[in-house]
C-alpha cells in the first residue's frame, strides 16, 4: 500500500517518530536483559550506578549458566519437543482444517466449533486430570508427556487458522484437477496443500512459539533435570527462594529467545503473506 507524504518533516512526525517510540518500547526490556546479563554482580546491586551500561562487561553469567545448569541439554529438549509437537499439530490441523473447510458432511459446523471450544478450557483446570492420562500411557517424565499434550492447545489453533486459509484457495483449482482424473486425496495433497504452504508456515510458527514457552505442563509432567525445557529449567533452578541469580537468569532468557527470533526473521515475510490467507476465513 503506497502512502505518500508531503515533506520529510511530516514524514518524520507521522512515521519515524512513532515507529521509533514503538520499537524502543518493544525492545527496551531486551536491552535490559542484555545489560543485566553482562553486568558483574556488584554493579547489579549498586543503586548509585547508572543502570544503562557497564564499564566491566563480563561473560561470567553465561559461563555460570552452562556450568551450574544443564542449559545445553534443556535447549536441545526444548527444540525437540517444540518441533515434534508442532509437527503433530500441523499434521492434524492440516487434515482437520481441510475437512472442515472443503468437505460437505453433516457435522462440519458443530465439529468445527467443538474443536475451537477445546481451546477455551483453562490449563489450570486441566493439568491434574491430564496428569492422570499421561501416567496411564506411561509417558510421565519423558518428552512425549508434553509432545502429546501440547497439541491439545495447538491443534485447535492450527485447525482453525488453516481452515480459514483453505477457504481462500479457490475450490475451482481442485475441481479442475479432479476432472483431469485426480482422486480427492490426490487433489488435496498435490494441489491444495502446496498452495497452503504459507498458511502452514504461519500456523507452524505460532505453534512452535507456544510450545517453546509453555510452562505449567512442562513443570508438572517433566521431572528429571535432564528432561526439562528452557523456561522450566532456568526458572526452577536459578531462582533460589529469596535469591535470584539475575545474571544467569537473563542470560538464559536471551539464549532462549534470540535464536528463535533469528529463525523467525527469515520466515516473517512468508508469514505475513500466509496470514493474509486466513483473513477471509
Amino acid at each position: 500500500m503506497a502512502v505518500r507524504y508531503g515533506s520529510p518533516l511530516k514524514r518524520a512526525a507521522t512515521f519515524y517518530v512513532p515507529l521509533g517510540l514503538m520499537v524502543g518500547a518493544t525492545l527496551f526490556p531486551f536491552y535490559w536483559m542484555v545489560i543485566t546479563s553482562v553486568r558483574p554482580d556488584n554493579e547489579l546491586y549498586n543503586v548509585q550506578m547508572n543502570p544503562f551500561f557497564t564499564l566491566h562487561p563480563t561473560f561470567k553469567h553465561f559461563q555460570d549458566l552452562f556450568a551450574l545448569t544443564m542449559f545445553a541439554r534443556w535447549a536441545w529438549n526444548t527444540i525437540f519437543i517444540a518441533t515434534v509437537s508442532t509437527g503433530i499439530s500441523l499434521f492434524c490441523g492440516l487434515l482437520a482444517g481441510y475437512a472442515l473447510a472443503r468437505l460437505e458432511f453433516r457435522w462440519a459446523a458443530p465439529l468445527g466449533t467443538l474443536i475451537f471450544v477445546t481451546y477455551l478450557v483453562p490449563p489450570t483446570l486441566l493439568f491434574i486430570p491430564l496428569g492422570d492420562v499421561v501416567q496411564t500411557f506411561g509417558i510421565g517424565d519423558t518428552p512425549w508427556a508434553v509432545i502429546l499434550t501440547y497439541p491439545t492447545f495447538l491443534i485447535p489453533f492450527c485447525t482453525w487458522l488453516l481452515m480459514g486459509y483453505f477457504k481462500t484457495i479457490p475450490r475451482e483449482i481442485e475441481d479442475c484437477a479432479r476432472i483431469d482424473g485426480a482422486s480427492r486425496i490426490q487433489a488435496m495433497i498435490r494441489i491444495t496443500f502446496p498452495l497452503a504452504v504459507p498458511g502452514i508456515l504461519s500456523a507452524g510458527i505460532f505453534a512452535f512459539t507456544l510450545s517453546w514457552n509453555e510452562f505449567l505442563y512442562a513443570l508438572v509432567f517433566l521431572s528429571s533435570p535432564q528432561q526439562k525445557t528452557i523456561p522450566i529449567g532456568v526458572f526452577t533452578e536459578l531462582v533460589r527462594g529469596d535469591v535470584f541469580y539475575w545474571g544467569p537468569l537473563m542470560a538464559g532468557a536471551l539464549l532462549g529467545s534470540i535464536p528463535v527470533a533469528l529463525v523467525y526473521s527469515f520466515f516473517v515475510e512468508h508469514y505475513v503473506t500466509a496470514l493474509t490467507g486466513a483473513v477471509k476465513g
Partner: protein
Amino acid sequence: MADQRIEPILAESARPTAVAIPAPVAVSVPGFRRPRRLGQLLERQDILAVVLLAPTLTILTLFIAYPFVLGIWLAVSDKVVGRPGAFVGLENFRVNLNDSIFLRAFQNTFVYTFIATALKLALGMLAALLLNHHFRFKRIVRASMLLPWIVPTVLSTLAWQWMFDATFSVFNWMLMNAGLISKRILWLGDGTLAMGCLIAVNVWRGMPFFAITLLAGLQTVNPDLHEAAEIDGANAWQRYWRVTLPLIKPIMLVVVLFSMIATFADFQLIYVLTRGGPYSSTHVFGTYAYEIAMRAAKLGQGASISLSLFPFLLAVIVFQLWYIRRSD
C-alpha cells in the same frame, strides 16, 4: 517460492468478480478410471472427512475431553489432594460467591482482559500501519517486533520484575534523573498501580501478535481502492476508516478472539510479578484457582474457580463466532 506462486491467485480471489476458472460440470466421469475399493470409499466426502478428522479427534478426546469431564467433576466435588472427593453439587460455587477475594479476582480478570485487549488492538493496529510502509531495515524491524512474543514468558516477566523493583527500578532511576519525580514510585506496591503494571506487561508481550497479524491483513487491502477513495477526496483518516478497516475487520476479530482467550486464562505473568498481592488486589481467576488448588490442596474448590471462567469465555466466543460467520 510458494508464496510467489500463490499471490496472484489470492489477488484474484480477493476480487469476487474475478473468478476465471470455469466451474466443473460433473464431479467425475464414470469409467474414467478404476479406483480401488479403499480409494472409492475415500471419494465419499463424509468418509474422507471422518478419516481426515480422526487424528485430531483422537488426540483431543484422549487429552482434552476426558480430562475436561474430570475437571468438571472436580468442580462439583469436595476433592482434596490424595482423597477421593464426594459430590457436593454447587456448594463450591456458592462458597466462591461469598468469597471477597474471588469476587475481586472476578472483577480483575475482566478489567485485565478488556483493557489489555483494547490496548493491544490499538497499539497493534498502530504498529501494523507503521510497519506497512517501505523503509530501510524493514525486515529487521518487523522481526524484532516479534521478540517480546517469543521470549519465554516466565523469563521476560522476571526482567520486568527487575525493572519494577522497589529499590532498583530503572524507571524510577530515569524519572528521578530527569527530575520528574522526587520520591520513587512503588510500581507493584499499590493495588491499582500494580494492576496497571500487569496490564502494561501483558500488552508489551501480546502486542506483536496483533501487529504482525494485522500487518498481514493490511497487505490484502487492494491499493486501487485507496486510490479510488483518494480521487473521491477522502483524507487519510477517512480512507482508513471507510476502506481499510472494513476490509481487515475479519482478521481483527480473529486476533481479538485468540488474544482474549489467552488473556482471560492468563496465569504466569501475574503469578511471577505479584502473586495476587498487594492485599489480594491483583488476583485473577488463574492465580487464585492455583493458590487454592495447589497451595491449599483444595482441588475441588480450585477447579470451581477455574471453571467459573468458562461460561464467560463461551459467551464471548459464541458471540464472536456468530459475528464472524455473519460477516462471511
